[in-house]
């Protein structure tokens, strides 16, 4: 177990193993997202109240899911890096921040565009939307913080602490639609109980969510690999890799 843990912490080993998974993740993401998008855009039935604008759900919900799950990935990686001084975990944390920020932006943007024909406004300071905006700022804060220290260790520690403190926001986002019943509709999918959605509408959403999970894993690996190459550029194996290309 400890040997495995130690191995996993080796950037070189991680680079080699992740390289084998990448093509499959890329293939799965493209197939799932393209088929989910075509299904959602053209074949899912129109919503009785919202009309066709509801088709934005197939981007909005998966992006929001991954924006939140991605925050946990970043915070857990930060904690592991801080506690066990694992270099690779710090790299994963740094790799997760821009990806999470982009997905949070997509969630906010698609929400705004969906809001206009549905609620009559692009933006409102509703609890769910405001807490998502806070999430975006947390991600941006971590990106900025990771670039503002000259030593990697101080930078990693500061980012990990901010990421961990920021996790307070996540349950607030989840529960915001129940605690403050404002404009944003309650969750469509719950872990307990059936989704409040017709199966014909729900199936493409499930495909999209799976596709977004694969996409998240793909980009997280790509970003981590970039980080590894950058930080390990003085090691022999990276030099050999550079010369072999």
């Amino acid at each position, binding site marked *: 177990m400890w040997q495995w843990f130690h191995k996993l912490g080796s950037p070189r080993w991680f680079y080699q193993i992740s390289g084998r998974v990448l093509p499959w993740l890329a293939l799965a993401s493209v197939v799932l997202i393209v088929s989910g998008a075509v299904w959602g855009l053209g074949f899912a039935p129109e919503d009785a109240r919202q009309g066709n604008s509801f088709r934005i759900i197939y981007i909005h919900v998966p992006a929001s899911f991954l924006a939140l799950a991605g925050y946990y990935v970043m915070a857990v990686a930060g904690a592991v890096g801080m506690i066990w001084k694992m270099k690779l975990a710090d790299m994963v944390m740094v790799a997760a921040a821009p990806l999470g920020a982009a997905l949070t932006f997509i969630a906010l943007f698609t929400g705004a565009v969906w809001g206009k024909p549905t609620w009559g406004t692009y933006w409102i300071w509703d609890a769910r939307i405001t807490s998502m905006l806070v999430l975006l700022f947390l991600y941006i804060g971590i990106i900025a913080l990771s670039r503002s220290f000259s030593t990697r260790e101080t930078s990693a520690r500061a980012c990990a602490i901010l990421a961990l403190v920021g996790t307070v926001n996540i349950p607030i986002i989840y529960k915001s639609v129940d605690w403050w019943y404002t404009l944003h509709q309650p969750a469509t999918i719950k872990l307990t109980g059936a989704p409040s959605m017709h199966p014909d509408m729900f199936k493409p959403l499930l495909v999209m969510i799976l596709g977004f999970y694969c996409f998240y894993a793909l980009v997280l690996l790509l970003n981590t690999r970039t980080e590894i190459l950058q930080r390990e550029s003085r090691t022999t194996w990276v030099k050999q890799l*550079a010369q072999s290309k």
Partner: protein
Amino acid sequence: MFQFENFDAFISMGGHGPYVWGAYGLSLTIMTWLALAPLRRQRVLLATLRQRIHAQDQKGGGQ
């Protein structure tokens, strides 16, 4: 079954076309960029490293 009578209806989405296509278009553009940006950076990193090694070698058998 395809929900629209023809291609024009599919594009206009009953008046919601700009919103739906705008949301999908921007999101997929950002996602494509997210996947391609690290690949480009890796290529640049390795190319720079290769040049540096090459320059060191020419200086006289390393060091």
